[in-house]
């Protein structure tokens, strides 16, 4: 009997080792090894545009009942040797990965002479694509040959130029009509944040612990501002002041013209999401599960909203209320006149993608490849599957 037991133990040891290998493989992948993407929703001309989890631009025509979903051709993965790295592959073979190219940026739109409305989207495969808004036919791609490093940034459009940051450390400016490179500006670290264009300047934050102001036309540096940690958050430009959070736990107010600090506020964790402004207050979400309502002029905190979950998605202003979504699935309304969040709805999924709003409805591109719409007054939910079942 003991012999049998010993044999059993040997077998158990083999099984255990195989199990460990499998657990290591699976847990490693599931817990954040694979890029999945968190594209937001662009609302334009009655349609919704977003990057799906399959790795393609999708348009949703709200004018039809049910809304018609039209996908563009899927983005193609960059050739990559590593399945689980930052090389911009498709997401690889790990469990939990997106089946296509991850898309983090929200689509952007510009009206281009002759071509009409074009929709722009950047992929984790290191490519930027332009599509016709109506047909979703591809008009151009940058770069034409090869790939850049993975792109996390959302594209910003201003005039005849579009801007995006890249993990190759460069800020790029392209011609909106042709996709030709106008200029690029090198920073000292990866860029995950999205550029903001204001007063002929492009503002971008970088992993190199700096925030830059660059001439929008030429790409020449105007100033740089140093923080004490990596910067991932996208700035908010308002009335000549740049409000930008950092992983050093500070929210900075910086003079757009000269890069001088006006004030800073320290939170409990990283400032990840872009803040929004309402009634003279800056509503800045922090990963300490709070949203701080800060006086835009003085930097004094007026209210701390305890949201009960991390807020990583960009908030949106709807009906004189700031709407935020937490990573544990709460949709909350924050008002300058109140100190407690108003519950709008509970969402089954965690929310990381930026929020968008139109006509009293907040749109969220969920992690399950579904666009959810929530009426901010009633909390009524609508959902549109981006991938036909």
């Amino acid at each position, binding site marked *: 009997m003991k012999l049998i037991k010993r044999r059993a133990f040997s077998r158990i040891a083999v099984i255990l080792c195989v199990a460990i290998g499998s657990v290591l493989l699976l847990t490693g992948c599931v817990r954040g090894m694979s890029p999945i993407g968190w594209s937001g929703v662009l609302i334009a001309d009655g349609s919704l545009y977003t990057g799906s989890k399959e790795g393609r631009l999708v348009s949703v025509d709200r004018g039809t009942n049910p809304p018609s979903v039209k996908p563009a051709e899927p983005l193609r993965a960059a050739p990559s040797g590593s399945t689980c790295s930052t090389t911009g592959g498709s997401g690889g073979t790990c469990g939990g990965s997106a089946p296509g190219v991850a898309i983090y940026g929200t689509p952007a739109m510009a009206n281009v002479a002759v071509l009409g409305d074009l929709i722009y989207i950047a992929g984790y495969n290191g490519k930027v694509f332009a599509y016709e808004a109506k047909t979703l036919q591809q008009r151009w791609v940058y770069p034409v040959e090869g790939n850049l490093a993975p792109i996390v940034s959302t594209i910003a459009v201003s005039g005849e130029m579009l801007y995006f940051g890249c993990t190759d450390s460069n800020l790029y400016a392209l011609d909106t009509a042709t996709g030709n490179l106008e200029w690029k500006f090198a920073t000292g670290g990866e860029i995950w944040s999205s550029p903001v264009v204001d007063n002929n300047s492009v503002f971008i934050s970088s992993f190199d612990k700096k925030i830059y102001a660059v001439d929008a036309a030429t790409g020449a540096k105007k100033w740089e501002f140093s923080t004490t940690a990596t910067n991932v958050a996208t700035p908010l430009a308002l009335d000549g002041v740049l409000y930008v959070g950092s992983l050093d736990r500070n929210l900075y107010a910086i003079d757009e013209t000269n890069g001088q600090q006006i004030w800073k506020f320290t939170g409990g964790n*990283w400032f990840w999401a872009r803040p929004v402004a309402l009634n003279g207050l800056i509503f800045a979400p922090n990963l300490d599960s709070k949203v701080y309502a800060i006086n835009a002029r003085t930097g004094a905190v007026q209210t701390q909203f305890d949201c009960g979950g991390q807020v990583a998605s960009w908030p949106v202003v709807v009906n004189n209320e700031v709407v935020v979504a937490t990573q544990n699935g709460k949709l909350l309304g924050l008002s300058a006149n109140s100190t407690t969040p108003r519950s709008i709805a509970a969402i089954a999924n965690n929310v990381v993608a930026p929020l968008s709003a139109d006509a009293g409805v907040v749109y969220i591109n969920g992690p399950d490849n579904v666009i959810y719409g929530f009426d901010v007054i009633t909390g009524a939910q609508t959902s549109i599957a981006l991938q036909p079942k």
Partner: protein
Amino acid sequence: MNLGPWDIIILQPIINVLIALSHFLFNNFGLTIIVLTLIIRFILLPLTMRQLRATKAMSSLQPKLQELQKKYARDKQKLAQEQMQLYKESGVNPIGCAIPMIIQFPIWIALYQAIILALAVNPEALLNLSRYFYGWAAPLANLPLSNSFLGLNLATGNIFLAVLVGVTMWVQQKMVTSASQDPRTAQQSQLMLWMMPIMFTFFSISFPSGLALYWVISNIFSIVVQYFVTGWGELNLNFLKGRPKDTAPIKDKKGKKYSELEQTPKKAPSGSPTASKSPQEGLSDGKSRDISQDRGGGDSKSSNPIKRWFGRS
């Protein structure tokens, strides 16, 4: 997403120590991985030692167990009783090898996960990492940590480190593997000896090499500890020494009962395999083959001297 019990009890402390260490080790992630791996392996050392001693004790009992199996081949009940008696007298718990190993698994897995999270290889990973910070650790977090270490990019797969993982794991497995007369056990040992290194080499190529660095350091630590407990074990170092491998009985400084067990065969009558020659002396025919190479067949009448030796015992 809230943290679960696994995250709070095991993963979160490790991640925060990792962050704090990186802060004090010049934001050098490679150095941080090495130091943290060593710290954890040292903390787990008592368990590791216990496991190794238990394994060694089981190995030492093999000749006696084989003897009993031969003696009571037709009486399974009696065999079980005698084996139980032998274990009791020797103070060996057959599951003693497995329990410490099982206790260590969660720590290893947590360390592995912590490294993956801290590498922050993509936006989701970095965002996920923020959930694990203690209040005091957030200001120390100089993230993402520098991935560069000795010319290697720890965030991408590296073939050199992957091969090193495979080699060190094979060496460690080889040292642990004990000679077994039972063909099934021998077959499983062979499977383990090759399967794990190959599997982990494959993992190492696919995953960020920060993990490979962790595995390499962990394996080297195991090899060193194993050496001090049992010597080179089944590892044949002839190719290094240019002579038949030294097969002197393994030494255990602390396990008195085990040393008694080792002494027992020495008192056996002449002709017994344990009399004056060590078991593998029969290998000095210049071929110096490894025991494990001949285990697959499991034929007790094999011409292999090791098998003959076990057969006589």
